[in-house]
């Protein structure tokens, strides 16, 4: 580099955050546990919203007992959360079966789109994305303000950038 010449070559800072865990492949399957079957339409829409993104990943429903992610629902009462994802990780890869649970105490009162945005967020975790607390206009924003305030219920560009970084 010539003296006195300062050329910025750094890539733009990424806004998304990674969990630090990913799948070996690009097709992630999910099974809807009986308590969540009433939400199947919203769950399937959430999965589809990830599958149609310009990324390498697909989130597909299966009806057999061999699957990557278990989708369930439970009434936890008024504990301030409408969705949870629980998983284990080893060496940077998901192990076992990650489980997502919708809290029916709240989601029973949501529209189908309201339920979809929670499940899309939880699927984001099962793909390896962490919360993005700085941008309400992403599906990985930590609270359902992402939808009820910012109108987001599908993966946005920042979420897509994160997935493309995890699954190049």
């Amino acid at each position: 580099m010539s003296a006195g010449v300062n050329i910025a070559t750094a890539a733009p800072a990424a806004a998304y955050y990674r969990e630090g865990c990913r799948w070996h492949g690009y097709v992630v399957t999910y099974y809807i546990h009986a308590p969540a079957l009433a939400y199947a339409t919203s769950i399937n829409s959430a999965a589809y919203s990830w599958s149609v993104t310009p990324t390498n990943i697909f989130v597909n429903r299966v009806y057999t007992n061999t699957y990557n992610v278990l989708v369930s629902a439970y009434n936890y009462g008024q504990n301030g959360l409408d969705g949870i994802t629980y998983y284990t990780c080893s060496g940077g890869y998901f192990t076992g079966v990650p489980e997502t649970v919708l809290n029916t105490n709240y989601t029973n009162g949501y529209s189908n789109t309201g339920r979809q945005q929670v499940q899309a967020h939880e699927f984001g975790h099962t793909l390896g994305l962490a919360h993005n607390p700085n941008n309400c206009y992403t599906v990985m924003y930590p609270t359902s303000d992402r939808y009820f305030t910012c109108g987001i219920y599908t993966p946005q560009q920042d979420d897509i950038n994160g997935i493309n970084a995890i699954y190049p």
Partner: protein
Amino acid sequence: MTRKLAVGSTLVVLALAGSGCGPSPGRVQAPGAHLKITQHIDISRVKTYTSISEVVGDSSLIAELTVKSQAQTTIGGIPFTVSIVSVDHILRGTAPAGTLGVDQVGTSTAVAEPLMALGGRYLAFLTPAPDGNYYVVGVAAGLYQDTGTSYLRMDTESPALPASASHGEMDTLVQAGP
């Protein structure tokens, strides 16, 4: 896609081999023994709390607590910590006689949100749970550490709530709530 997967797997093996994860010279280590399994819990919160008044509005009991014992359990397939607490001082609401239980999602090994610690003193904004215990309002929004002279916010996802407040300041905010 198959080629990408094969290359990715190879890179993982190479990265692990060169990451310092491998056995030290002179030591024998079983293959894969360095791959620790970690547990993770992520939560979608219903809403973002922006004021103590909002937290008060969703609380039925606001009190200073001391954690007397803790146990781990599973609720709806998710690990929870149940803290048995004594109620030291009530700022608002009515507490049942004796100790009460507070359910928090996550454990010390499956960390989700800030947890109360055994022996710790806290100001907690509480709401009833279906199992007869209580939840902290807003997952961790309603949880402050009690230093004896002030309260320190434990929640990292409610930046609009006061980071700290003296006992007097917080009592004023609580009493002014809805």
